[in-house]
């Protein structure tokens, strides 16, 4: 071990100076190229004749895939269409159960056989679930959330949304689990899976929406498939990680007890990894609910459709109410699933009590459902929440926005103009005029510094891809938008995180605020933001900051709390004041964790891109959106890949930096 270590030390000694020289050379070259723009235009702006017509190839590939790809017995499209047909059955069953009731016949001659679950029954059943999972607090939360849906007139749409979530989540979680297990078993498969998962999580959804529509037909099934594609990757990752983290002695014990491979997997590994797997399922639920609005653009209906149509008619209040319904549904499902995951294992008894004593809540819920179904056919108030008892705060929200608009517009405009002229526009101008070759080289040098030749090759080639496919300027605008948004989000999030780390009450309040910001559909506050700040980069920035501030706060608070208590004690013993402890001990040690938070912030900022395209920016998100509306698969996928590559470059660079820093600090 000594020879490589000494070589590292030698390299490390001369390293900073070598890189300083490299950066200086790069800076000089960049300035030279920029000044000599007229003479060497190719180095400053990637010339059009050299563009790679990738988007046309992808479109042709997609056309072939959809129309002509023959697998022998059937075409590819027939296969995907039959998968869609298969998926339609459980989806229709769930919709009948929750939203529409079971009926025979179609169209006008349809006759209802069994009505849907009555609203009271569903609320009480879910409350019972909460009671059995954790206790009265959770039951109250779940009941309150569902009651909001009924009282504010969101019940019908919410049930449509719930039906597709109830089918999509088990499918996504199940597929994620199986893929994760496969990746856990085979290292080669994992090497293929990880970059694929990266792409699935970073390519904007709009980019693969059109192929999904072509392959699975128009309708709720295509929306559900798109949701599953979006929501499954975290489950796969978590499964692989969790299975690998099962303690070695547990696995040893399983082998000693004589388990076959299958028994080892299903009876030892998976149950041991259950807490982490439930975190994965939680992520699947949250991401599925995030997708609700986009899913409604391609036919899912439900709450997402309500939000969209209300905001398009500028009924802001209705949009806010529907958006809050989505948020409450997300929080209720999230807390429920977490509670089920963290349930303490049941105590073992010598004699097994009869079934109905073991599952009291299940019995109660079933009895209740049966009773209320019968009662609902007689008493309409039990079946559907009476319309006359519905209330709405819609007017209040619209009036609030109007009041802010009329009274504060000029002040807000002053702030916006100052920020625009002093921060946004200079950065934008810089990034769009700096020569492309300088940026690619800079990214490659950074990669080399942090991770050697392999990382440099990866980051350099990904950056080159953006230039080669003709998306350079739009990519730079994307980088500028996300960069400025991440900067502002960090400036807001890190101090709030520090505050939350020191004060428990603040932490709890901040937690609720962040949860709401992350689950409230961004479209809901996008329209009021446009009303107050007009179409343009600033409104987009605000929307992105609102969404992306959450990880900055979370990871900062988490990182500061994770600092080992002994270190803090040692610092106090050495005589540090609280502030010195914070800045000189806690912060540097928490820095890697905070950087991970920034990494997540960047990811979330990029994922908001396509939503901000709805406001009117001129970046990659707009490219993807235009491609969607023109059903141009190639254009959408290529632009989507550029977004994914920006995400991957920043993720790899930051992760490499964090790893090095952790090693330096002795934390790993």
């Amino acid at each position, binding site marked *: 071990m000594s020879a490589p270590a000494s070589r590292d030390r030698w390299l490390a000694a001369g390293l900073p100076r070598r890189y300083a020289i490299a950066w200086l050379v790069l800076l000089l070259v960049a300035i030279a190229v920029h000044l000599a723009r007229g003479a060497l235009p190719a180095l400053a702006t990637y010339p059009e004749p050299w563009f790679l017509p990738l988007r046309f190839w992808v479109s042709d590939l997609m056309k072939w895939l959809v129309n002509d790809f023959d697998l022998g017995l059937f075409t590819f499209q027939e296969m995907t269409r039959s998968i869609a047909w298969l998926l*339609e059955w459980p989806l229709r069953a769930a919709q009948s159960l929750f939203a529409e009731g079971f009926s*025979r*016949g*179609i*169209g*006008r*001659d349809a*006759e209802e056989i069994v009505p849907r679950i009555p609203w009271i029954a569903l609320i009480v059943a879910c409350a019972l679930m909460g009671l059995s999972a954790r206790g009265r607090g959770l039951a109250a939360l779940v009941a309150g959330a569902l009651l909001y849906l009924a009282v504010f007139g969101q019940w019908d749409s919410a049930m449509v949304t719930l039906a597709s979530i109830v089918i999509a989540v088990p499918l996504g979680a199940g597929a994620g689990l199986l893929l994760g297990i496969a990746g856990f078993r085979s290292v080669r498969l994992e090497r293929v899976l990880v970059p694929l998962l990266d792409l699935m999580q970073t390519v904007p959804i709009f980019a693969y929406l*059109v192929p999904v*529509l*072509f392959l699975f*037909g*128009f*309708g709720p099934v295509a929306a559900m498939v798109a949701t599953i594609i979006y929501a499954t990757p975290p489950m796969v990752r978590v499964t692989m990680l969790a299975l690998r983290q099962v303690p070695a002695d547990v696995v040893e014990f399983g082998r000693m007890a004589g388990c076959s491979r299958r028994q080892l997997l299903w009876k030892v590994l998976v149950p041991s990894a259950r807490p982490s797997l439930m975190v994965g399922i939680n992520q699947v639920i949250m991401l599925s609910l995030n997708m609700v609005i986009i899913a*409604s*653009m*391609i*036919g899912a*209906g439900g709450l997402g*459709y309500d939000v*969209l*149509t209300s*905001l*398009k*008619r*500028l009924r802001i209040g209705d949009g806010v109410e529907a958006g809050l319904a989505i948020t409450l549904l997300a929080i209720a499902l999230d807390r429920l699933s977490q509670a089920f995951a963290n349930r303490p294992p049941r105590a073992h008894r010598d004699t097994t009590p009869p079934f109905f004593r073991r599952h009291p809540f299940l019995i109660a819920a079933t009895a209740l459902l049966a009773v209320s179904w019968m009662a609902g056919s007689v008493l309409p108030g039990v079946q559907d929440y009476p319309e006359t008892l519905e209330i709405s705060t819609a007017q209040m929200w619209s009036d609030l926005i*109007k009041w802010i*608009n*009329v009274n504060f*517009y000029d002040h807000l*405009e002053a702030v916006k*103009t100052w920020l*625009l002229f002093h921060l946004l526009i200079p950065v934008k101008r810089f990034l769009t005029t700096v020569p492309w070759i300088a940026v690619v080289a800079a990214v490659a040098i950074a990669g080399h510094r942090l991770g050697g030749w392999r990382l440099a090759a990866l980051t350099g080639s990904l950056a080159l891809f953006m230039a080669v496919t003709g998306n350079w300027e739009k990519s730079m605008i994307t980088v500028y938008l996300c960069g400025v948004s991440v900067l502002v989000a960090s400036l807001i999030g890190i101090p709030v995180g520090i505050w939350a780390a020191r004060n428990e009450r603040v932490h709890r309040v901040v937690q609720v605020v962040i949860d709401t910001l992350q689950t409230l559909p961004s479209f809901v506050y*996008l*329209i*009021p933001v*446009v*009303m*107050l700040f*007009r*179409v*343009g980069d600033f409104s987009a920035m605000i929307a992105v900051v609102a969404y992306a501030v959450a990880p900055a706060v979370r990871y900062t608070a988490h990182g500061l709390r994770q600092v080992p208590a002994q270190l803090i004690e040692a610092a106090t013993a050495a005589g540090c004041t609280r502030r010195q402890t914070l800045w000189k001990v806690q912060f540097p040690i928490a820095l890697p964790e905070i950087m991970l938070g920034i990494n997540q912030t960047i990811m979330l900022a990029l994922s908001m891109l396509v939503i*901000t*395209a*709805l*406001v*009117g*920016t001129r970046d990659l998100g*707009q490219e993807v*959106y*235009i491609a*969607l*509306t*023109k*059903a141009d698969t190639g254009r959408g996928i290529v632009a989507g890949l550029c977004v994914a590559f920006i995400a991957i470059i920043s993720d790899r660079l930051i992760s490499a930096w964090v790893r090095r820093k952790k090693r330096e600090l002795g934390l790993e």
Partner: protein
Amino acid sequence: MKTCAKSLATAVLAAAALAVPPAVAAVESEDPIKLTIHDWTGQYITTNIMGAVLEEMGYNVEYVQADYIAQFAGLEAGDLHVAMEMWETTGKDAMEASLATGKTVDLGETGMVAIEEWWYPMYMKEKCPGLPDWNALNECAEAFATPETHPKGRYLGGPVTWGGYDDERADALGLDYEVVHAGTDAALFAELESAMQREAPILLWIYTPHWAPIKYEGEWVDFPRYTDECYKDPSWGMNPDKAYDCGKPRGWIKKVGWKDGEAKWPKAYQAVRNFTISNQEMGEMVGQVDLDGRSVDEVVADWMTANKDRWMAWTM
């Protein structure tokens, strides 16, 4: 789902079920006709009226949500069957490309006329007395300017996908204005609402039939009248070197459908071809839904009752 059992059940139920109006003949196919719906009220109303008429004729109808231009893929494949509103001003290219594939068929005009143009609120006339003449725009560029576009004026156009050639128009007519594109119509009208609440300057793309011109008072800018040559021939018009030196065209709004559907439901397709509605009726209904808050179902039911003879004639 097209199973034999379901068709049988439907037939039995139909026989034993509620009285069927005597004007309805037996339908050629029980399969549901899929009408596409988008996200603006006018099209929602048009499609629901057509769907109601088809249901009166005895057909089964399904409403499928689909994006305005992406729906052509579905129409060509037979996933979707009829789209009731393709606007010449924004969907012409996509529609012609689709018709060229031979898998879709033009089902005629709806009778509505699409008007869209640069629009300003009435109170701007005091600050800029030369309006609505387009020549007054340059004198008032500062009145319509914002800090980001100063000293040029600001015009808020529709999404890039709507086309409209506004960038070219501003250039050809030498207008001192910066053309900003809203990402969606929701953003467009959000800015309108905000400006009207504050009586602030705004110049933007407004079209009818739509709720915006019903709600707010204002005028369309009077550009040189559109002709086909204006868009194709640079030498036409006041700018001899550039095309697009005129206003936007008045446009048809047509229906388009899946070609094979005509063989499958011939009488239904004939009814779709016969469907016509005027700007007057559509404007009133859009106002009732978007501004007065009535539900689309109510408004459609009222129309069906009030116009019974008219839609019965379509079904012959």
